[in-house]
């Protein structure tokens, strides 16, 4: 898959633009917000699309439930809050009114994990993927690239079901020059034969940087963007593991229950091989900027490089 590298754009800008154009094209597209329009840059949508874009107030449980109710009547709701409140705060509603009810809702959780930065531990969802991965029928997406994000917004609107999409609001590098993605299919960003690095969200850029440094040491790392954490692309992960014989996962999430767990489950059942999970240990978040938190929680490219060498050693 072709890679470009540029400064990209703010994902919240992508979201506001895509919601605007989707709502113009289809009046059944609904945007519900739990009073974070200012933080998301979507404030104009409420006046431009009265009724279709609704700030329900600070009530995530009702927002998800009402979205599920209207979806059964043909509406296609996108609902947003910070990832913490879009998961923990409305988990039972997403489970029962959403999944169990056979509803059709896209839950957007912004600023996952350490990307919550100055909002700190209270606002730092490191467990949202674990929660939603256990819900039957829920699709879980972890995305931090503008082009892929645009695709995911458009594609989920075309599909019927329950989706959880976590994304950072701020500026992120663009590394795709394609729009040919598929939910459920991982993207091999860089081919390699020595070790597999399966990453998602903001950790994909760290994985790419790690692969470049490893190459200077003569190690060919295969980098896979597993943006669909559920249903996970078993075929792609297994094929890569068969080829490299060693796997590292990298995620901006607790190592319990997220991408690392999902990949470990696949490998343990199909291609047992040395593996290591790079992610946040079993602890809470805290305030700080992205660089500080990345160091603090071991989410840097150095952590990935170290893990890659460790699993390669264990191959022998």
């Amino acid at each position, binding site marked *: 898959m072709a890679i470009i590298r540029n400064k990209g754009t703010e994902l919240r800008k992508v979201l506001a633009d895509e919601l605007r154009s989707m709502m113009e094209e289809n009046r059944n597209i609904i945007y519900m917000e739990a009073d974070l329009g200012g933080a998301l840059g979507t404030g104009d949508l409420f006046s431009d699309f009265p009724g279709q874009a609704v700030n*329900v107030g600070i*009530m995530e449980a009702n927002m998800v*439930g*009402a979205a599920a109710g*209207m979806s059964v*009547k043909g509406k296609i709701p996108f609902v947003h809050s910070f990832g913490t409140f879009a998961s923990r705060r409305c988990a039972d*509603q997403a489970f029962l009114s959403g999944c169990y009810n056979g509803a059709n809702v896209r839950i957007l959780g912004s600023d996952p994990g350490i990307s919550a930065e100055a909002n700190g531990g209270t606002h730092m969802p490191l467990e949202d993927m674990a929660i939603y991965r256990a819900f039957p029928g829920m699709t879980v997406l972890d995305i931090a690239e503008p082009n892929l994000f645009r695709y995911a917004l458009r594609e989920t609107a075309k599909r019927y079901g329950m989706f959880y999409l976590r994304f950072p609001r701020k500026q992120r590098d663009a590394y795709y020059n394609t729009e040919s993605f598929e939910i459920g299919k991982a993207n091999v960003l860089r081919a390699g034969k020595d070790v597999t690095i399966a990453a998602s969200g903001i950790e994909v850029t760290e994985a790419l940087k790690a692969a470049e440094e490893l190459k200077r040491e003569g190690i060919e790392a295969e980098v896979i963007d597993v943006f669909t954490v559920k249903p996970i692309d078993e075929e792609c992960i297994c094929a890569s593991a068969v080829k490299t014989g060693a796997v590292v996962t990298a995620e901006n999430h607790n190592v319990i229950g997220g991408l690392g767990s999902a990949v470990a489950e696949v490998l343990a059942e199909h291609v047992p091989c040395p593996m290591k999970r790079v992610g946040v240990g079993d602890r809470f978040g805290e305030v700080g900027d992205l660089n500080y938190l990345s160091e603090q929680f071991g989410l840097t490219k150095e952590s990935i490089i170290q893990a890659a060498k460790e699993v390669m050693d264990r191959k022998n």
Partner: protein
Amino acid sequence: MNFDRIQTERFAVEIRKSLLRAIASKGSGHVGGSLSIADVLAVLYSGVMKVDPADPRMEDRDYLVISKGHAGPAMYAALALKGFFPQEALDTLNRGGTMLPSHTDRLKTPGIDLTTGSLGQGASLAAGAAFADKLDCRDNYTYLILGDGELNEGQVWESVMFAVHQKLSRLITFVDANGKQLDGTTDEICTLGDIAAKFAAFGCNTVAVEDGNDTEQIYQAIISAKQETQKPTVIVLHTVKGAGVSRYEKMKNCHSCGVTEEDLKEAYKELDDRKRSL
């Protein structure tokens, strides 16, 4: 809309008999809160709601959300009697593979519009459905039945604020105020005070029905609710848990209890007497 009181009361008796039959076939179940809503269901399914048993998913139908999902047996009785599915299905309640699970499930049962079972959630589902109708300028109604114990759930009040702000006047909510929840009376556990006053304070149009097990009074309350064009209406039905069968009316706790064949025979006798007296 014509209202035939005698016919509706008879229908309520049949709902009671059928729901008890369903619960007796399993041996136990949610008796009290099913019996207390038999009358409102009888009214809704006697011409008030726009539904078609031959086409349960009819696009422009009125919706009914039983947020107190454990009253499933009452719904199933009403739906079976109306011909949404064969009455024999009632004997499969809560058995493996049944289309009639304890809590109402729209994916399993014809005539169930939204799935419930975690208290409070039906309120938001109903508000969302009513909101979609309003956006699309449809003129159908969404009916919602809440338990009084269910009002302990914060989500109910979130949904009420939303419904009031969005002026969902075609959302008509019934509170089954039978005064009892699982572990005791609503007063003992977490006092609700004046339920109608609480909803009124949130901005709802409210109607209090003195005898919430009287079909005529329920019907008149619905007629009054339909005059409202701005606010969602909440009809507080002062009911009796276990209503219509003295054994359960007198029982301290009939939320979930056993129903033996003997109990069923006794209840049928009382209910048939009631029907003959109409």
